[in-house]
């Protein structure tokens, strides 16, 4: 599966950047508006309303979508695109609390939010004790269930110091029946620290054959799969639980090609079902075997 040429091309195009940037925020209190300021329980359902009379409670929830680099250092190994989940956890008065999950990073933010006409303007600052912390500034339009904005890193020397986003309000629920789509078959696997210059792998339609969250896999199911496919099948288990991948290779697949995937957590180990645990063990075994022995002199 070493397709160095392909990989070099991929690199050259730099379709995918590399470099983890993570948002953050700190509490800040801009002038309060007249909107109702209540502790809103996590209402993740979208609320279709006839007469648009929104309160801050309607803002609570996950906003998910592309987190795109807008200011970056081309000389560095940056990631152009990640899938981000900006969660508005609570709004009390005009003070805002939330967190964001992206690229295996779960960071809290605090700040303020106020109504401006039909929309809400918010600012959330990350604590600043992580090198990838920064400040989110955004506009939420409750009638469209959309959040748009920018994130600016505190440290402007980062590979990516500014990112933009246009996110959709979505709810997350673990659903073992979610399947990978044909799109994944187009994905390339890119390895960050390749052994040989660049090592690219391609995902095949084999990844669609099994759902390791619902069916107990047998050795016969797995033994004839490519390593890259096994890896994607195994990680689809984590993706269903909303695991935010630190692993760049898996991020490229799930962030980009899996519509239902929402990063919500950086540790989901205690949520795995029995079937999933068994499948992970089996898949991992064959994955490691393929990694070590597939292309060497031996069996």
């Amino acid at each position, binding site marked *: 599966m070493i397709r160095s040429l392909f990989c070099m091309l991929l690199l050259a195009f730099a379709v995918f950047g590399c470099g983890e940037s993570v948002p953050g925020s700190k509490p800040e209190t801009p002038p309060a508006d007249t909107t109702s300021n209540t502790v809103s329980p996590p209402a993740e359902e979208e609320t279709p309303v006839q007469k648009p009379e929104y309160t801050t409670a309607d803002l609570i929830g996950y906003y998910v979508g592309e987190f795109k680099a807008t200011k970056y250092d081309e000389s560095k190994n940056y990631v152009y695109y990640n899938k981000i989940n900006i969660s508005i956890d609570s709004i009390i008065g005009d003070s805002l609390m939330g967190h964001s999950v992206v690229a295996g990073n779960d960071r809290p933010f605090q700040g303020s939010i106020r109504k401006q006409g039909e929309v809400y303007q918010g600012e959330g600052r990350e604590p600043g004790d992580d090198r990838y912390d920064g400040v989110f500034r955004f506009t939420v339009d409750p009638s469209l269930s959309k959040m748009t904005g920018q994130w600016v890193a505190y440290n402007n020397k980062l590979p990516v110091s500014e990112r933009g986003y246009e996110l959709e309000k979505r709810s997350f629920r673990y659903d073992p029946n979610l399947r990978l789509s044909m799109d994944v078959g187009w994905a390339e696997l890119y390895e960050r620290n390749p052994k040989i210059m660049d090592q690219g792998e391609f995902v095949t339609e084999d990844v669609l054959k099994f759902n390791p969250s619902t069916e107990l896999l047998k050795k016969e199911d797995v*033994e004839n*799969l490519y390593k890259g496919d096994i890896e994607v099948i195994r990680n689809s288990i984590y993706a269903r639980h909303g695991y935010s991948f630190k692993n760049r290779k898996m991020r490229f697949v799930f962030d980009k090609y899996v519509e239902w995937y929402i990063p919500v957590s950086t540790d989901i180990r205690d949520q795995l079902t029995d079937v999933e645990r068994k499948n992970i063990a089996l898949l991992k*075994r064959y994955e490691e075997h393929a990694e070590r022995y597939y292309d060497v002199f*031996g*069996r």
Partner: protein
Amino acid sequence: MSRRIRFSSYPQTSMLLLPLYALFCWLMVQITWQYIPWNTDVAFLRIKQEYISMAHYRWAFLLHVYSSILVLPAGFTQFSDRLRLRWPSVHRQMGWVYAIISIFLAGPSGFVIGWYANGGWSSQLAFCLLAVLWILFGCLAILRAKQGAYEAHKRWMYRSFALALSAITLRAWKYLIVAIWEPRPMDVYQIVAWLGWVLNLLIAEWLILRWKNKNTLKTLPS
């Protein structure tokens, strides 16, 4: 009077082949080395976990790994005319080591492992047949040597060793096929399960035929 047979020898070829053979033997030693100390959760055995709990599989595997590596040195000694003529006892002793290991240890244990081979009935059949033929050819070769039929002895030994070499050729084919076509892992396995030894046997037959046709087989007085 015992007869000795002089086979066509090609010093140039052996100059080339022997280092290559040595290299592959070294690679085989490294593969064996993975199982020292004995560990059932390493290398090939990592994907044989459902069988490793069975005592007969475990013993067969252990026996096969540790005994079959001793078959390879025969390739350095048994085909040399000079060595056989000058030190016939070395030839005989090495021959016994090879024969006993292949007939009683590595062969039968190979059959047991082959019975549970990866890749379904096709590769299971390939490996079991390989084991049976290896034992059979080894027996015939010894029998013919005992009877003094050294030409026949030599023919059967060529066939036997061709099968022994499948340890190397199977893995070499696998490497080559993966490097070129990158097929799925078990597809490769099913291919090399047959390719690994059938081709060797054909080459051995071709060599045997060639001596006959060219009359390069000469018997010399001892």
